[in-house]
């Protein structure tokens, strides 16, 4: 019965929305599969999620709206706040009220707390016990920031105070108190006496399955094309202590960067030498690693444009939880955009040095209230052959925002001078279509004259007439 009600909600309510966002995905990092529909109304936003997490059916729904200057969310949401490196996120189901002014931000929550999921494609919560809390943040004009978080989450209590100060060359921050019944302290100092010199130190407490403490001290200096850096890291998780040190330098000459770094942890020494080159939309890197007398080679890189983004990255990360110290990791990221739909795939390395993945798709669709929509593919075909022209009205005045489709799929718009151009891959005439429904220019328009096609290297003239509203 519950699932039937959810289906009705998912399919029925958004039917009258202006814009719908549909998302679906799967994540091994989060152990869940599911989807979400978000309906954007003129005065509110409604979201509904459903899926499976660790083999169990989970669902969530929320509505967000404004009332008397307050941002209100009713339903499922992650009550998450962070300041100065400290953060807390609790899955909740209830009522949130938030008010932001120039200097002060206040959020209040009342409802129930429990286990939940918050991902780019699904937000759910499972009520387990009652909860309430608030988060207050106030900026003072002298650079001070005061933060205060208080939360009752079943039998767990949180009361954390934070204070930070930022000036031109110095940033100091500290927070402490009780975080879910456990003593907590976090501190951070960042000093930049010159533009090219930075020294920072920090201490953090994390509460995962158990208490994790981390400390770090690092610095870097910019000496022309050369940037030396060094850092000391330490962590303690349960009875396991892990320490590490790294030092190295990078040399940048034009588009080429050469890095050489030394890492030491758990009496193991890792040397990593990398060369990276950027050219236009491409990045190519070659890495040579030396560990305990063994040499290994790896290659990475990426390509980014408006439709597709690919990358294969190799990096060295410090893992204090598993006690493994510095480890080489490889991650893959792929994003593809097709019209208003985005497809994403990304791998992550979890704290236990296991590779996990998350993949999801999201798309925007126009609802019945959306009015005229721009629905055409518009990525440029690219190429060296240019077709250009101008759009004018019945008085010979330029028309800005006229939409013209050229054969091959590209949609171009006229500028403030009424001019437009598109680049074509082939030196042959392309069919020209004026898309009246896609105009960004206000008004109703009719075509007076327009050539059927246009050849590269020629200038076409499109004449329009503004129609009087009936």
């Amino acid at each position: 019965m519950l699932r039937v009600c959810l289906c009705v909600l998912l399919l029925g309510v958004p039917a009258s929305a202006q814009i719908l966002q549909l998302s679906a995905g799967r994540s091994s990092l989060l152990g869940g599969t599911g989807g979400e529909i978000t309906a954007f109304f003129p005065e509110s936003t409604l979201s509904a999620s459903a899926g499976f997490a660790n083999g169990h059916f989970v669902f969530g729904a929320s509505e967000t709206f404004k009332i008397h200057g307050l941002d209100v969310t009713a339903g499922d949401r992650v009550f998450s706040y962070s300041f100065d490196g400290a953060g807390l996120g609790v899955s909740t189901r209830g009522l949130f009220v938030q008010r932001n002014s120039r200097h002060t931000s206040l959020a209040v929550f009342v409802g129930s707390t429990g286990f939940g999921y918050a991902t780019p494609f699904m937000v759910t919560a499972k009520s387990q016990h009652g909860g309430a809390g608030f988060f207050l943040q106030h900026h003072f004009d002298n650079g001070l920031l005061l933060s205060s978080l208080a939360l009752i989450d079943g039998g767990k209590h949180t009361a954390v105070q934070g204070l930070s100060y930022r000036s031109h060359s110095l940033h100091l921050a500290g927070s402490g108190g009780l975080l879910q019944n456990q003593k907590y302290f976090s501190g951070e100092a960042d000093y930049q006496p010159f533009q090219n010199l930075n020294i920072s130190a920090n201490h953090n407490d994390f509460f995962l399955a158990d208490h994790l403490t981390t400390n770090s001290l690092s610095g870097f200096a910019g000496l022309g094309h050369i940037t030396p850096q060094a850092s000391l890291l330490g962590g303690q998780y349960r009875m396991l202590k892990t320490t590490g040190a790294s030092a190295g330098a990078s040399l940048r000459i034009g588009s080429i960067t050469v890095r050489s770094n030394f890492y030491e942890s758990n009496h193991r020494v890792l040397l990593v030498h990398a060369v990276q080159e950027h050219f236009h939309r491409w990045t190519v890197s070659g890495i040579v690693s030396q560990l305990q007398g063994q040499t290994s080679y790896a290659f990475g890189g990426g390509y980014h444009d408006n439709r597709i983004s690919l990358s294969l990255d190799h990096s060295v990360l410090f893992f204090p939880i598993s006690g493994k110290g510095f480890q080489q990791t490889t991650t893959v990221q792929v994003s593809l955009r097709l019209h208003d739909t985005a497809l994403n795939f990304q791998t992550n390395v979890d704290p236990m040095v296991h590779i996990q993945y998350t993949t999801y798709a999201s798309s925007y669709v126009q609802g019945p209230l959306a009015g005229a929509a721009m629905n055409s593919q518009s990525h440029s075909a690219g190429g060296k052959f240019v077709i250009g022209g101008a759009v004018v009205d019945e008085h010979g005045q330029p028309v800005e925002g006229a939409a013209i489709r050229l054969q091959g799929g590209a949609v171009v718009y006229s500028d403030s001078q009424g001019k437009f151009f598109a680049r074509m891959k082939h030196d042959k005439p392309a069919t020209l279509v004026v898309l009246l429904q896609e105009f960004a220019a206000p008004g109703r328009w009719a075509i007076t004259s327009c050539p059927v096609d246009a050849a590269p290297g020629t200038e076409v003239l499109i004449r329009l007439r503004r129609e009087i509203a009936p």
Partner: protein
Amino acid sequence: MKRVLSLLLLQFSFFGLAVSAQTVSPLIVECGKKCRGEFSITNNGLTALAVTVEARSFSLDTQGHATNRPLDSGVELKLEEGSARVPPKGTHTFGYQLKCSAPPCSVALLSSMVVGHAAEGILVRVQLAHTIYICEKQKDCRKKVRAAAGVSVD
């Protein structure tokens, strides 16, 4: 708790910080005599956005205020695209190549945006500038151009 932290990290890694309105980045670049670059327009809205790009040369007065004019004859600009449709919550990158025969040159690439389509009313256009300073040498080019114009304010 571990799961919640992981979820938050993942959410931030995918979404970054929430911002509103349309944005352009980078705002300013400095180049040598030949310049190849790109800038990105981000549409943080929920409807697609028609963006057109126009180039202008500009000069500065002593207060640092810019006066635009048509592109100088000594500036040769090749835009990869003159317009684009930026999808909701999407980012579009415009590439360009620029040559300046008599440096220094100051060029603004103005991205004009009109949201939606209305049958009646006036055209409301937002313009965001990507500014390019071209000198013989890239280093401190903006500073040199501003100093040459007698700009005393930062």
